[in-house]
């Protein structure tokens, strides 16, 4: 263990001392990227910087091993945490030699609010109001991942209409999330007019969300057992208007962005990853698909009713920012396709399971039925009990695989609630993507990872 890290260490046993320190005082250790002469050899040799290091021998050329480079040749530059291109409070430490980026280390935690701990304190039916705030750009996905895990544990069969409503909202949410990404990606790379258009189109979707759920964000709409309310009258017209507008505007954006040589030059060949690296890093979503690995949870591990709709999984080849741009552009079109099918096939029926232990009784029943009142009271004071066990059900969020690992001890509160956030894992790709490029490329890389810091820090 320690001897490997200590091999070739300048100054006797620096790594050993560090490891001892870690074991003795568990709260010790600098999070920041350290200067080269203070980093352990293992840290430098197993590639660049902080969150990401590749296994030894992989993707490594002789130049990378030059950890003896004197400190005055390199400089560590701080980017963020308050920087418009970091999409929140992401702090990135970049080591540069001249114009060239050597190591990159994201320093995160600025938005950590202990939501997993909070989740252990809340009852199951309160949980979705907590998880919806994690990835705040795709709240429906958080809710659906949470509810699917809870329903896995309770063994609840959700009515078909609720399943399709969930799918409708998720796909609309994917469109709104990707549109926001298009907007901010444009802003990051100098296509500032896209910022306005992306937000404009997203507004359409948020207005629809508000009509359905009552809120523009953090909806708490998908709940264990179904959804909170049925779709409002006239929802089909709204959905059709959204689909029509978005697909028409996507063609305009193709003219505006895809055909624009300056934007292409900023992305083409920048931040390239290969499939081995991407898989080894546990990347998912557009990042993984851009490297040619065809993996989409919706297709490979179907949940809700995704096996009943027809859509394509968009896969790239080059693994660079340009591919990821194209993948997201086309995923918006695929989502429009799914939304149209869902609107077409929306079954009739109940929007939540009529299980008195799981969902509250209809409001008008409470006025006339003592039992309904009791059920309502019991549900909101004691919650519902969930059989002991653990479950993890992944869903495909706009950023990749999102899953909720829930451990139940048989009470009405989760014993452990862990969210596998795609942004948290995908952020590890920043170091290999940015390595060897220039500072402006780092911005392009951060943008094409599309991290949501609420999801990273939770």
């Amino acid at each position, binding site marked *: 263990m320690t001897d490997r890290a200590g091999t070739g260490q300048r100054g006797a046993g620096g790594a050993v001392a560090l490891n001892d320190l870690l074991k003795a005082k568990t709260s010790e250790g600098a999070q920041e990227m350290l200067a080269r002469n203070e980093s352990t050899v293992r840290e430098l040799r*197993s590639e660049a910087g902080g969150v990401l290091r590749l296994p030894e021998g992989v993707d490594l050329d002789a130049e990378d091993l030059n950890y003896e480079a004197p400190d005055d040749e390199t400089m560590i530059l701080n980017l963020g945490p308050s920087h418009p291109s970091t999409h929140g409070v992401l702090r990135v430490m970049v080591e540069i030699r001249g114009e060239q980026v050597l190591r990159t280390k994201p320093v995160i935690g600025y938005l950590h609010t202990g939501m997993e701990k909070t989740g252990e304190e809340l009852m199951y039916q309160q949980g979705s109001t907590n998880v919806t705030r994690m990835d705040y750009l795709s709240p429906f996905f958080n809710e659906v991942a949470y509810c699917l895990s809870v329903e896995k544990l309770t063994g609840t069969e959700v009515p078909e209409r609720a399943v399709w409503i969930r799918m409708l909202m998720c796909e609309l949410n994917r469109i709104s999330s990707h549109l926001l990404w298009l907007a901010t990606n444009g802003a990051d790379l100098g296509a500032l007019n896209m910022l306005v258009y992306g937000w404009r189109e997203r507004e359409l979707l948020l207005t629809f969300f508000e009509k359905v759920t009552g809120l523009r964000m953090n909806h708490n709409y998908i709940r264990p057992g179904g959804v909170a309310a049925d779709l409002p009258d006239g929802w089909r017209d709204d959905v059709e208007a959204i689909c029509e507008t978005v697909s028409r505007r996507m063609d305009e954006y193709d003219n505006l962005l895809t055909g624009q040589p300056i934007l292409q030059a900023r992305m083409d060949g920048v931040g390239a990853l290969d499939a081995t690296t991407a898989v080894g890093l546990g990347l998912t979503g557009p990042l993984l698909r851009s490297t040619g690995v065809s993996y989409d949870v919706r297709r490979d591990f179907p949940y809700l009713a995704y096996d009943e709709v027809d859509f394509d999984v968009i896969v790239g080849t080059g693994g660079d920012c340009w591919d990821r741009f194209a993948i997201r552009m086309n995923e918006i079109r695929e989502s429009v396709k799914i939304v149209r099918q869902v609107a077409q096939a929306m079954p009739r029926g109940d929007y939540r399971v009529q299980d008195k232990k799981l969902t509250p009784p209809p409001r008008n029943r409470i006025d006339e039925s003592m039992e309904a009142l009791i059920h309502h009271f019991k549900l909101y004071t004691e919650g519902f009990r969930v059989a002991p066990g653990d479950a993890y059900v992944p869903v495909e969020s706009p950023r990749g695989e999102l899953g909720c*690992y829930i451990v139940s001890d048989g009470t009405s509160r989760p014993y452990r609630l862990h969210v596998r956030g795609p942004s948290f894992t995908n952020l590890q790709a920043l170091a290999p993507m940015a390595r060897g490029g220039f500072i402006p490329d780092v911005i392009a890389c951060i943008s094409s990872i599309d991290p949501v810091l609420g999801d990273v820090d939770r």
Partner: protein
Amino acid sequence: MSEGQGNEPVVTADGAPADEGGELLHGCPVTAPLGQRTVHTDPARYLALMEALYRDGFEACMGLTGVDYLTHPGRDLPEGARGERFEVVVELMSYSRRERLRVRCQVPAEAPHLPSLFDLWPGSEAHERETFDMFGIVFDDHPDLTRILMPEDWEGHPLRKDYATGHVPVQFKEVPK
């Protein structure tokens, strides 16, 4: 990266015959609660099991986290797995076979140490840091085991069950007017 291994190895690392549908995988008991396959292991066998699973074609580590079973010791465990205070839960994924596997490793409270999976799956790096930060489980040979979400001078590990959340008292009477 091992691609598309269609056939399972018939012999486990320790030479015992593997029973894919039954109880043992590389000598470790397997359960499938709610249809999700889970392997149970302990720190001594952890790394060997993980290396064997990596060779079996589980190319990706989708996630790694911890659970503190301090106040819920009587959980369901198969024959051959002894419940300890901590558990490290790893979600593995095989793209070539479209297969998922969960590994639950029992970690005793008196020696919360596990070998790092970094050399097998570099993507486990941030997850191990998070688990260290939240539970105080030390991953030996991890290249940069520091706190990741909490500030570096934070004391204690927030997701442990003996770490109180605390509360801010709400004053109803003596609110200054």
